[in-house]
């Protein structure tokens, strides 16, 4: 960014600039914030062919703002103490003006955030948005996902219902699988010898902190994005002026329209089915002496939960020697299922980004999507019988997709010819089926 020259009276044209214009120039010379905004929001060249799947990034940003705004207001009336947390939430629902609205917006906002971000990620997977030169952009996105999962998990503990307490117990206990130091780590996380008041208080503190960390990483995510600009459905680089349009007004209005559609969906849930996505069990106050029939996380964490519970003991065949116990193996697999995304740009080394021109990868993408949804279904069921079997097959496939199929396809797939440019696709109307 270069600072503009100090506007002098001589430099101005015959018409004297107005007061506001003068103030703008004064500020901009000292800190070019208006130049920056003009550059990054107005002129910012964007591929002209982005489809509606490209709406979900800005939607995620807006949901993050909604979550922070409602969260700050909720924190004003919430009490992070095991004796008062559940009651204070009911106070918010009954006695705080529009407290029920703020809480339902926040509670369902978590689900909306994950829904929007998952669509955003799968769009990236379909159109190859993780490929050079956008690997860092992709990494920062995965960091945001990890932070979101931590934030959502700790937020779910705050109402101190049965599922809050037992979810916290199960998830923190995972760390006890770490050899030698596991138990010490778990006590350290709890701040005691069980999930109790110290746990609730630190979770509240961190639940308030992490969203602002997410904001920071989002800024980096946008910085990386604006360095090379958006990928596009054709997955080819912009070559001429004709391939780009300014972000404003074209994508501001398209994003606003998308926001309208999204808000209709979001608000329909908030006002007419606010508890449909939640567990009824969490309206029962936490009781450390009574374990619920089954402990399940919220829907957006179910696939990982399924992977966690699908992995058996890793043993040397026919010897009965267990190398890694199921619990530790499950924890490793669960974390690996996300960390594997970091190396995806190198596992998928095909130079063609968009699945529109990759007939085999396109099939793999849809199978992978179905496998992820199936894992979600498995996570909601007890790990026995059919769900356990489906879970094990899908977990194996999940990793095979990244470690075996994607690299093989990248090597051997015969891709379709790419269009000359974004503005003149040589194959008009081709590749539509993927949308």
């Amino acid at each position, binding site marked *: 960014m270069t600072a503009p020259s100090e506007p002098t009276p001589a430099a101005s044209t015959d018409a004297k600039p107005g007061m506001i214009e003068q103030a703008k120039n004064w500020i901009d010379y000292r800190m070019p914030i208006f130049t920056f905004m003009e550059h990054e929001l107005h002129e910012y060249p964007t591929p002209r062919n982005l489809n509606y799947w490209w709406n979900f990034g800005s939607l995620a940003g807006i949901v993050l703002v909604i979550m922070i705004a409602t969260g700050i207001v909720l924190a004003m009336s919430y009490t992070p103490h095991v004796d008062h947390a559940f009651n204070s939430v*009911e106070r918010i629902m009954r006695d705080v003006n529009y407290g029920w609205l703020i809480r339902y917006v926040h509670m369902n906002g978590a689900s909306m955030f994950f829904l929007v971000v998952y669509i955003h990620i799968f769009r990236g997977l379909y159109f190859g948005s993780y490929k050079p030169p956008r690997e860092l952009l992709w990494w920062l996105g995965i960091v945001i996902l990890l932070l979101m999962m931590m934030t959502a998990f700790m937020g779910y503990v705050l109402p101190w219902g049965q599922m809050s307490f037992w979810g916290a117990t199960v998830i923190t206990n995972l760390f006890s699988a770490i050899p030698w130091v596991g138990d010490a780590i778990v006590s350290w996380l709890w701040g005691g010898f069980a999930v109790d008041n110290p746990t609730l208080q630190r979770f509240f503190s961190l639940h308030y902190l992490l969203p602002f960390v997410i904001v920071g990483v989002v800024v980096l995510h946008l910085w990386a994005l604006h360095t090379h600009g958006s990928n596009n459905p054709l997955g080819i680089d912009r070559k001429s002026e004709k391939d780009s349009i300014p972000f404003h007004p074209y994508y501001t209005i398209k994003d606003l329209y998308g926001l309208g559609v999204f808000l209709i969906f979001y608000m329909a849930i908030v006002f007419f089915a606010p508890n449909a996505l939640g567990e009824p069990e969490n309206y029962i106050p936490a009781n450390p002496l009574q374990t619920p029939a089954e402990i399940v996380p919220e*829907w957006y964490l179910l696939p990982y939960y399924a992977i966690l519970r699908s992995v058996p003991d890793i043993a040397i065949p026919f010897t009965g020697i267990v190398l890694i116990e199921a619990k530790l193996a499950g924890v490793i697999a669960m974390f690996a299922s996300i960390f594997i995304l970091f190396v995806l740009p190198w596992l998928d080394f095909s130079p063609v980004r968009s699945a529109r021109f990759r007939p085999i990868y396109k099939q793999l993408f849809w199978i992978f999507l179905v496998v992820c949804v199936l894992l979600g279904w498995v996570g909601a069921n007890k790990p026995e019988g059919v769900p356990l079997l489906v879970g094990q097959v899908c977990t194996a496939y999940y990793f095979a997709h990244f470690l075996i199929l994607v690299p093989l396809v990248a090597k051997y797939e015969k891709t379709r010819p790419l269009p000359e440019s974004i503005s003149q696709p040589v194959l008009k109307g081709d590749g539509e089926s993927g949308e």
Partner: protein
Amino acid sequence: MRMTKALIAALILVLGVGIAIGTSVRAADAPKPEAQDWSFTGLFGTFDRAALQRGFQVYKEVCSGCHGLKHVAYRNLSALGYTEDQIKAIAATVEVQDGPNDNGEMFMRKGRPSDRFKEPFPNENAARAANNGAYPPDLSVIAKARPHGIDYLYALLTKYKEEPPQGVQMSEGMFYNEAFGGGQIAMVPPLQPESVQYQDGTKATVPQMAKDVTTFLAWAAEPELEERKSLGRSVLLFLLVLTALLYALKRKIWSELH
């Protein structure tokens, strides 16, 4: 066209997630209760005030002996259509402990509208001691705390059976109830025909009382329901119009490009 396809695909994804959640029926849980007709479900649902008052009467005369309603205040009863004086009278029927006074002593006084419903037992141990070891849960949010909450409550209150099916060994002091997970419940069948004398002349059959008290408990769990739905209709209407305008504007702005 592209947009429609995109929306359809998004819907499929949402449905997939929905099915994943919807099928998560816990094996140990109660059987899925039969769906009843309720006045307060759906887009335009409202509570039937007469049913609410009858339901409150059932709660007061039958349930409140064992079950608390600690998140609801007497003043909230104005939503049921009671006048201020009636609410004062209702609150005054209980004695609550207050204090300390200027001499540092706790004292008993009559309930006030600002008080929350008096709990039937001083603590959980007392509740268990009086109920054969079982703990009657607080009913403030019970309608939200069970899968298919309202239908479940209705089923629970109407599906007691005098005799368990053949081969079912009942534990000491337990009652057989088809709607309850596992079939054996510690709660004494609470409703008998004419358990209460309705003031409005409605015949107090067991299904009638079950329906009324469930309506009352649905209100207790979601006192904001009517306001929520009414505001929700305005919000959705506004968003529909706004989104239609944004779409028109988007078409206009983009038409310069094509």
